[in-house]
């Protein structure tokens, strides 16, 4: 033990140790101050009801109450549909959505049923109104009345119907799960697409093209621009009525396609943010791939050309294998960045988008902790978030390792 101490801290090796500490010191200090300490504080806060507004925080009883709230999920069968589904929502139970078309038809024709002509109108109007979707109104405090009292702390996350029965997945905090799913949706699309596109761009700007530095700069420039600025600009580009993107779609299709309600429709809001994020981030991965490409010795290509390999074979059997380490790095970092998705969401859809379709875990933690000042609860969300990202990263590492074992 003493000898080890001597070896480590004295003599030539010792000097190396102290030099290393001196060089690494500032970085370690920063890591402790801004990563490790906040994380420990976060774990501590996640078991309290700490808030922003001077009220005194207490330790929760039981301590995992916040985590229970975040993670509780259940599946139940909803009550059967009544024979006549009302248009006015009951305290709890089924009702039919009043569509704008239904409202319009009812306000435009005050139908008189005794009039034979009007009967047709009333009939039509009823048909229009029946197209409104069925909605189950779930109000925690009224669930007792329909025999679901034990679930009063839950909310509906998703409804499914089959075989004439209606089921619901319920969660104590459905918005967290929605954010989690949105994060996975974003990562599953953005990571492969952005990586592939970056590789393609890197290969293109690696050719001996004229003005290739101009192209490299062009592709890279969004990366060095602040995300908030880009998001504000793209918000205008996505404007459904006057935005450049819809104008372009209309121009290219000769007015056949109207364009999309990008950030206003639940189906398009997330893709809109994905497209913009890929455009913004692709330059960064491109530069890394470019560095990887330039590390591949030219003689490999020459040798393969002599062996009669075509361009595709060269790409498949030289470029790709030689870029393996670069690829691993790019995929890992892109995945973590994808899970951190926040800036663009907060600027482009500050309320989490239509039907919360662009809500993410980080957005949700900030909303609860910052906007709604529930610091304790937001800490619990953050802890769960870190654990999930950790698991995803570990899975990726394991997959990568087992692949290298095969080789």
């Amino acid at each position, binding site marked *: 033990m003493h000898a080890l101490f001597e070896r480590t801290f004295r003599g030539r090796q010792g000097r190396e140790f102290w030099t290393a500490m001196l060089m690494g010191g500032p970085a370690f200090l920063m890591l402790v101050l801004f990563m490790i300490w906040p994380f420990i504080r976060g774990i501590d806060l996640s078991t309290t*009801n700490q*808030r*922003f*507004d*001077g*009220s005194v925080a207490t330790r929760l009883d039981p301590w995992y109450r916040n985590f229970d709230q975040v993670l509780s999920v259940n599946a139940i069968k909803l009550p059967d549909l009544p024979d006549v589904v009302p248009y*006015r*929502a009951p305290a709890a139970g089924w*009702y039919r*959505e*009043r569509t*704008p078309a239904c*409202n*319009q038809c009812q*306000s435009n024709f005050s139908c008189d049923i005794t009039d034979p002509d009007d009967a047709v109108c009333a009939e039509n109007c009823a048909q229009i109104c029946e197209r409104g*979707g069925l*909605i189950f*109104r779930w*109000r925690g*405090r009224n669930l007792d009345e329909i025999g679901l009292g034990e679930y009063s702390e839950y*909310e509906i996350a998703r409804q499914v119907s089959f075989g004439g029965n209606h089921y619901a997945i319920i969660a104590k905090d459905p918005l967290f799960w929605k954010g989690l799913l949105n994060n996975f949706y974003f990562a599953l699309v953005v990571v492969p697409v952005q990586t592939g596109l970056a590789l393609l761009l890197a290969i293109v700007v690696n050719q001996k093209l004229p003005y290739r530095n101009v192209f490299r700069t062009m592709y890279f420039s969004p990366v060095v621009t602040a995300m908030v600025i880009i998001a504000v600009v793209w918000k*205008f580009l996505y*404007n*459904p*009525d*006057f935005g450049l993107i819809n104008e372009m779609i209309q121009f290219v299709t000769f007015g056949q396609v109207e364009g999309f309600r990008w*950030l*206003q*429709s639940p189906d398009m809001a997330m893709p809109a943010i994905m497209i913009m994020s890929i455009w913004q981030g692709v330059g960064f991965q491109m530069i890394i791939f470019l560095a990887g490409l330039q590390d591949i010795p030219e003689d490999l290509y020459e040798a393969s050309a002599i062996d009669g390999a075509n361009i595709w074979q060269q790409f498949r059997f030289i470029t790709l294998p030689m870029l393996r380490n670069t690829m691993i790095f790019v995929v890992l970092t892109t995945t973590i960045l994808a899970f951190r998705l926040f800036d663009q969401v907060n600027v482009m859809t*500050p*309320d*989490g988008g*239509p*039907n919360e379709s662009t809500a993410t875990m980080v957005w949700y933690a900030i909303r609860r902790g*910052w*906007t*709604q*000042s*529930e610091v304790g609860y937001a800490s619990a969300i953050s802890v769960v978030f870190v654990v999930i990202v950790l698991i995803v990263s570990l899975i990726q590492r394991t997959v990568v390792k087992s692949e290298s074992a095969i080789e």
Partner: protein
Amino acid sequence: MKSVKLFVFVVLVLALAMPMTALAQDGKQQVTLWFHSGQGSERDALGELIDQFNAESAEYEIVPVEVPEGSYAEQVKAAALAGDLPCVLDFDGPFVYDYVFSGDLIPLDDYASEELLADVLPSIIDQGTVDGQLWSLGQFDSGLALWGNKAMLEEAGVRIPEGIDDTWTLDEFNSAIEALAGVVPEGGYVLDVQFQLTGEWFSYAFGPWVQSFGGDVIDRETMETAEGVLNGPEAVAFGEWFQSLFEQGYTTATPVDPIADFTEGRVALSYVGHWMYNTYKDALGDDLVLIPQPDLGAGAVTGMGSWNWGITSGCEVPDGAWAFIEFMMQPASIKLMTDANGAVPASLTVLEQDERYAEGGDMYIYSQQLSGGVALPRPATAAYAGIQTGMEDAMNAIARGEDVQASLDAAVDTIDSAIENLAQ
């Protein structure tokens, strides 16, 4: 080499000494101040007033910090928790309950003289009073009604109300919108509802419309829940009507530049507050008319209250903070501000002299709404931040065409959980 070392040394010494000299400057006590960065004219007027105060005062110097408006309330909260609040704090009316509840402010009763208060608009004193004590004072009250383009209204044959007694009913409002739809040019729309704004606008502007339909944003008797009020049949009726305005293209949830749309004649009605008066007047001149808040069924209702000043409990120089607020409440200071931003002056002296607010003036409707019981204060609850978030989300969801009942239910949940959190 030596000269380089000397140079570095001198720079270091200077850099270290700089803050000391800044503090010692002419021996005045510094008073920190935060304000929200509003529109340009208001910011300029405030800057001018601070300069005036600093030039006049022998004892105190105001050190202002401008904080972005979008998340102003959140930043104040964070600073309160960290103990970093400034001496003088600028905040929007309803937050006074929150700050008093959290113990962030000190009462002004010991400072404010009766003479000063006698000249202050009663609605301002109401807004700043919590539990019988005065906590804040503001230079102006707000006015909220519909700005109209007279030429377009006349072309569409729409009746322009003279005052709050003959304001539009819901049916008249609807038919006015329909008639105006035939008048607005290509690329325009009838009614601007300022959906490019974020934050407090949605509860300030559309809370009154919910009330005018017979609903409310909170049960004002108990202040304990929004259940049955913001998601009851009356509020749902409001939501369905409001949604139909978007559905039929009369208004838009995605305006690019609604102010230019109105000033350049692409929009006939603009639902926005007093703060657009100068801009709109410059552009439209005599074509600018103010239409009182319509009666949507249960009587016309509009918002009131505006930004005001308070002294924080951590302030080490409360006398200096008060000296500044007292200076701000002088009729001359108030006049300078309200001339710039078009708001209702909080000083009775200034209000009486202001032709714009006298009978026949451009903004007489605002004084009528304030004195005629149309303007109602925002709910006196420390959970106002929850109302703000809930309304913002719900109005946006309704505008996008989501189910009205479900959207309002979600707003009720947000508000009720904010109230529950207070009780803990």
